[in-house]
């Protein structure tokens, strides 16, 4: 499979009569976008706001982040099973509005989702303080169920991202990235002498607001499976995970999975990157055993000698991470684990809920319990009252002057377990 990513940079956003890309400025027809999203009868209201890096803006509670993409060629459309049909993606060419992000916000449940500060000390912790954000404020109709409200908000984010990319796809890309994923027979024979490496990609799959979708299928109902990294880039994996903002993998980080990027960077030079194995993190112990065995079996069938394993979430999924690690190592597959930590506000508690002697190589995305004071912002998009009930915030974390004391857990993508950020931790 071969995929070209045609990347057009977006350096600024503004509203205008026609949605288009002009000199790196994404011009958006606000009414057209609103009208398109309001076609969903389950929505009562939609607002569209813009937020740029450096502005005194706080966005919360953010549900999902999506990068605008659409297909230029190769059949089907991005986000298969949602925007596109269920046929295979990951081939041909895909248009990307690089530097723009659709952020969906709106109340689903309490406690909920995360904070994006466009400036100030909190901005250093979220990847989305450096993107130009199209902020959708979503109000589902009161008579829709929680399941439907979540599905609606999820779909609206994808729809908006696809709409923006589609309207601009005639623009010339500044850069074209090429990715190839050969058939297995070729991949196995390629790069003799280089160690074969796989990526075991764990997806949160525990229930409502804790789910991930693969080609439109609820990940908890899947067995671990092989997928081409190019399919991931076309949005084959999308997030329905709305809780624990710091370490949930939103759709944007799936589309731009940095582990896939890092493995590609070494592919053909130091390693032979032969596969991505999607696996889930179900709550039942039987599923945990089955999925970890099956994922490692797929890695063994590929004949890999090493694998990167990334987790999503914490607590319960720590058990999946440990099972994947133990089973891979005992199958002779060397592992590096990517996780984050819940070591308490003072950093002295045990970081993970489970551990294993085989877990000798761990990359951490930092302690999510570390606290930070976020000063007031001139403008808040979303609902500031959510601070009281935001996961990782504590009751009363919103102060009278508009500042908030929160744990990093409340900040979107702060301790991303795909290793998106430079943050980590060490022991003193």
């Amino acid at each position, binding site marked *: 499979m071969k995929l070209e990513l045609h990347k057009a940079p977006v350096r600024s956003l503004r509203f205008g009569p026609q949605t288009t890309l002009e000199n790196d400025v994404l011009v958006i027809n606000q009414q057209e976008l609103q009208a398109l999203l309001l076609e969903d009868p389950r929505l009562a209201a939609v607002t569209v706001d813009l937020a740029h890096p450096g502005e005194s803006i706080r966005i919360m509670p953010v549900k999902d982040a999506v990068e605008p993409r659409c297909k230029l060629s190769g059949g089907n459309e991005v986000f298969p099973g949602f925007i596109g049909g269920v046929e295979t993606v990951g081939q041909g060419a895909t248009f990307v509005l690089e530097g723009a992000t659709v952020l969906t916000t709106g109340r689903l449940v309490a406690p909920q989702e995360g904070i994006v500060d466009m400036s100030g000390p909190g901005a250093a912790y979220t990847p989305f303080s450096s993107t130009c954000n199209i902020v959708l404020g979503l109000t589902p109709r009161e008579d829709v169920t929680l399941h439907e409200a979540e599905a609606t908000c999820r779909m609206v984010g994808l729809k908006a991202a696809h709409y923006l990319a589609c309207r601009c796809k005639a623009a010339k890309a500044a850069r074209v990235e090429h990715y190839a994923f050969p058939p297995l027979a070729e991949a196995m024979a390629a790069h003799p002498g280089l*160690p074969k*490496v796989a990526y075991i990609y764990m997806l949160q799959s525990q229930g409502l607001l804790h789910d991930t979708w693969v080609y439109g299928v609820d990940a908890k109902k899947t067995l671990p499976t092989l997928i081409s990294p190019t399919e991931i880039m076309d949005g084959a994996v999308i997030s329905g995970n709305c809780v624990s903002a710091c370490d949930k993998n939103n759709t944007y980080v799936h589309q731009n*999975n*940095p*582990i896939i*990027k*890092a*493995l590609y*960077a*070494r592919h053909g030079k*130091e*390693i032979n990157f032969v596969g991505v194995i999607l696996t889930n993190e179900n709550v039942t112990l039987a599923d945990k055993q089955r999925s970890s065995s099956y994922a490692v079996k797929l890695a063994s069938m590929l004949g890999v*000698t*090493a694998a*990167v394993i*990334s987790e999503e979430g914490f607590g319960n999924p720590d058990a999946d991470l440990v099972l994947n690690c133990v089973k891979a190592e005992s199958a002779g597959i*060397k592992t*590096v684990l*990517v*996780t984050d*930590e819940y*070591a308490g506000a*003072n*950093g*002295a508690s*045990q*970081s*993970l809920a489970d*551990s*294993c*002697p085989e*877990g*000798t*190589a*761990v*990359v*951490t*995305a*930092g*302690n999510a319990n*570390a606290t930070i004071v976020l000063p007031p912002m001139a403008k808040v998009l979303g609902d500031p009252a959510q601070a009281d009930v935001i996961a990782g915030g504590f009751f009363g974390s919103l102060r009278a002057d508009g500042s908030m004391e929160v744990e*990093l857990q409340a900040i979107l993508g702060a301790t*991303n*377990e*795909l*290793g*998106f*950020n*430079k*943050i*980590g*931790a*060490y*022991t*003193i």
Partner: protein
Amino acid sequence: MAYRVIHYINQFFGGVGGEEMADHKPEVRVGQAGPAMALHAALKGEAEVVATIVCGDNYCVANQKEVAALVATTVKKYKADALVAGPAFNAGRYGMACGTVCAAIGEACGIPTVTAMFPENPGVELYKAGTYIIPAADSARGMGQAIPAMAALLLKLLRKEALQSPEAEGYIERGVRVNMFYEKPGAERAVDMLLLKLAGKPFTTEYKMPVFDRVTPRPGITNMAGATIALVTSGGIVPKGNPDHIAASSARSYGEYDIAGVNDLTDTTYQTAHGGYDQTFANQDADRVLPVDVLRDLEREKKIGKLHHLFYSTVGNGTAVASAKKWGEEIGQKLKEANVQAVILTST
């Protein structure tokens, strides 16, 4: 202007007296007393010891909150920027006192705290997360080495300099996780680490997973009426007089004692050697820790085959894990050779 430091020391180093004065109530002395003089000198004018608090070890351990509150008041009164305690060397209660005072003041006043003790001092394990502990020798002979190291770390903390790893800075790893920004994103660090691991080259994990020594339990005993049962305790029960001199804390040995014919442990025949809990009830009736009387009942009732004629005892109070593991293996081997089917382990 020089930083202002308070130094906490015990009754012995404060010149009040030895063990007999361990109940000495805390007193605040203006300026430097005992080791505070050496610390003051080692700070070379960049910081000064403005007051010394002298307190009996027993008093401090028994009245931790009160002593911490007094130290906190003193810190405020003297507008201190930091607290130093010890060195406690291998004195168990002094280590506990230094640890508890440093941890409490660090939390209550938000100022840096530094102490020093022998790495096997029980105060290390209990308080290393709450303060910086410089490893010291096991006796006051190590004063000359400990004080300059404490002064150097303290000055770094006062200057708010970024600390390197515990090894580089020379303090005992606190086990506290602190966030930092690396040069590269986590994903790239992961692939870098994978390449090193693949090449068999050394690499440094960013998080050391704790390794637990888990033992898979043996299957249950099907015929209790035929089983020989042994008693082993870390509660310190020994024959009256503690003939093997098992230490009250940081034990260096365990004892093996014959209880053939003994049906009941009494206050005239047995006692506890343990210094980490109130001994009153154990000394009144050692069966409360080592239930010989009940097992003799079960023996008579034929609920168990018999009680093994030897019991093993040590003190768990700050005893090194490595020693405990070694003794456990030895005791296990002896019990196995004696055809014991099961052991009741009692702790306190």
